[in-house]
């Protein structure tokens, strides 16, 4: 285990000039990405991963986490000024943000959003640090039995919670499982679904898959929609002295911020739910518990605060299962797993043991990112308000270029470009027909781990299922998973039945 001095040293490492510069770059870029409506978080992370190759592992991860946090804060700007959420998760921010901005107080709306974002993010980061380490310490004792059981549980949970149709989610998950098994079979040495390509021997390369399904496909979707919503009404910041946030007003929103952070953190820690769910849940809760629910939707600062605090709290909280168990619970966490893999680090509880200084430096880097978010958002208010009007016809070509550049930089060559294109078509259909993305990506990432642990369990136990009785934690997860499958099946049957009765 790591000593106190070492922890302090790791914190020190996050406060060096170089480190702060990298995180600043990440947050700033994230902010811009968040502000521009056509660009979203997963697109940005997917194309930023290759750009981090020449950085050290720590710098790369800190940069990506900064980017991820920045998008959540930046997306409020376009939600408020444009009534178009920069990220889907900021849709709840539009509800009160846009009306408040329309009524001549855009600056106030932006500042409430920013402060709520920062507080939500910071508190959730602290929660992550407090929870992930004891979690990882316990998880270190887990063997293949426990891990296999937990991975199955996580997969079923994500498929059930990821939103949209349960059937479509499972089907997408099935595709992820199949793609996850591609490559050299670790036990028999057989080639699986490689079709003779040596490039596929170690599995479908994660970077082309991610860039294709997430980034390039998104550009195709936007090209198609490009003509439909060309002009939007941007609210400009006025010089109106009346339009500012007073300390008293901010204090008034604090209780909402705290409650919403709690909701966001809870939702984030559960794999698969995602920030949109967190933001809408927090908004709904704030509205119901308010004294004057009618003022919500007409520019109530509490509405902005609730949505933004929860939206931002989800991001750090979604890293709890990632660092604690090695299981990605969201798209951005799944992308981080890929980034860690590229830098030769297995993310998960083992990090606490093998790279504790790195883990603590990343955590302190996350705190630095929260603080930088405040500074960037506060002083960049004016500039970001202008960035909202960057038209998509500039964004799309550049992003397409970045997708191809990412593949070339990593050295996958023409094979990689074809794979990217194939997955872009695949991702396009996932989006068009509304099949769950999270389930697909998480299933793809988790399948190799699951198969390995399952296999190890079966070989080590000699194939006897009674071993579970000696492994209480694994047994508990197996039982919970079984119950959950029953519950999900039952509730979707009930839903269908009631719909049929209604119609």
């Amino acid at each position, binding site marked *: 285990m790591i000593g106190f001095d070492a922890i302090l040293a790791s914190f020190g490492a996050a406060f060096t000039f170089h480190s702060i510069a990298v995180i600043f770059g990440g947050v700033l870029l994230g902010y811009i990405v968040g502000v521009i409506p056509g660009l979203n978080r997963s697109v940005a992370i997917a194309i930023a991963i290759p750009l981090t190759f020449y950085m050290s592992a720590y710098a790369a991860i800190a940069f990506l986490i900064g980017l991820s946090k920045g998008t959540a804060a930046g997306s409020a700007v376009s939600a408020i000024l444009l009534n178009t959420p920069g990220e889907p998760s900021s849709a709840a921010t539009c509800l009160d943000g846009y009306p408040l901005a329309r009524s001549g107080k855009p600056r106030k709306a932006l500042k409430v959003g920013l402060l709520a974002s920062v507080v939500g993010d910071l508190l959730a980061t602290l929660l992550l640090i407090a929870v992930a380490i004891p979690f990882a310490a316990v998880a270190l004792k887990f063997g293949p039995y426990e891990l296999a059981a937990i991975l199955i549980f996580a997969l079923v949970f994500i498929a059930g919670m990821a939103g949209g149709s349960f059937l479509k989610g499972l089907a997408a998950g*099935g*595709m992820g499982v199949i793609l996850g*098994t591609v490559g050299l*079979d670790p036990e028999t040495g057989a080639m*699986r679904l490689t079709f003779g390509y040596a490039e596929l021997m170690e599995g479908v390369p994660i970077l082309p898959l991610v860039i294709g399904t997430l980034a390039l496909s998104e550009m195709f979707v936007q090209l198609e929609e490009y003509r439909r919503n060309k002009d939007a009404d941007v609210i400009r910041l006025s010089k109106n002295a009346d339009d500012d946030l007073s300390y008293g007003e901010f204090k008034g929103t604090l209780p909402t911020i705290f409650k919403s952070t709690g909701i966001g953190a809870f939702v984030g820690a559960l794999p698969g739910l995602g920030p949109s769910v967190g933001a809408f849940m927090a908004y709904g809760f704030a509205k119901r518990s308010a004294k004057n629910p009618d003022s919500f939707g007409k520019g109530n600062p509490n509405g902005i605060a609730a949505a933004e605090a929860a939206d931002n709290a989800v991001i750090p909280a979604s890293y709890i299962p990632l660092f604690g168990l090695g299981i990605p619970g969201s798209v951005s966490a799944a992308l981080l797993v890929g980034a860690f893999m590229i830098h030769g680090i297995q993310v998960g509880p083992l990090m606490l043991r093998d790279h504790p200084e790195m883990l603590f430096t990343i955590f302190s880097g996350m705190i630095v990112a929260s603080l930088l978010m405040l500074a960037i958002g506060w002083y960049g208010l004016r500039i970001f308000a202008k960035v909202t009007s960057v038209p998509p016809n500039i964004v799309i*070509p550049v992003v397409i*270029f970045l997708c*191809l550049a990412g593949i070339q930089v990593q050295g996958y060559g*023409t094979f990689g470009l074809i794979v990217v294109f194939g997955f872009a078509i695949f991702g396009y259909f996932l989006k068009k027909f509304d099949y769950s993305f999270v389930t697909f990506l998480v299933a793809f990432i988790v399948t190799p781990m699951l198969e390995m642990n399952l296999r190890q369990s079966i070989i080590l136990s000699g194939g006897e299922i009674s071993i579970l009785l000696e492994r209480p934690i694994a047994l508990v997860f197996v039982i919970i998973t079984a119950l959950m499958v029953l519950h999900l099946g039952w509730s979707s049957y009930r839903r269908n039945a009631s719909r049929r009765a209604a119609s």
Partner: protein
Amino acid sequence: MARMDFWSGAVVSALALALIIWVIPTYGGGGAAFGLPPQLLASLGAWLMLICAAALSLVSAVKLWRAGESPIQLPSGSHLWHMLWPFLYVLGFIFLVDRFPLTWIAPLLIGALLVILGERRWYLVLPVAVVPALGLYVLTAHLMRIGVV
């Protein structure tokens, strides 16, 4: 929506069926393994796809039938072209990138698309087309030192 569900479900079922009957048994790998045979997880995934997609297709077919809607509604030619051209555009450039370094192709890739999307101001097109390529050049040739890609 029901129409889209019906068709996507049908396509996914067909894909899953092809995987189960042909692709996985032929290319899934073999060999004796204790515990998990190499094809097991992939087959499970394919069955999962098949069952879910078939169920989805069935449910939406019933819905369509009840609503009295026809399951077939062809998209118009211009709409189809509108969907298709971005793919062809990118595919064309992938062929070019196979021959020449991306760094040299990039300004054309970005610039041409900008013009297609209706941007006519040259003072905007020029920097947007050139700056990213320059950035890539600096990244690969100087920071990562892997040569021009």
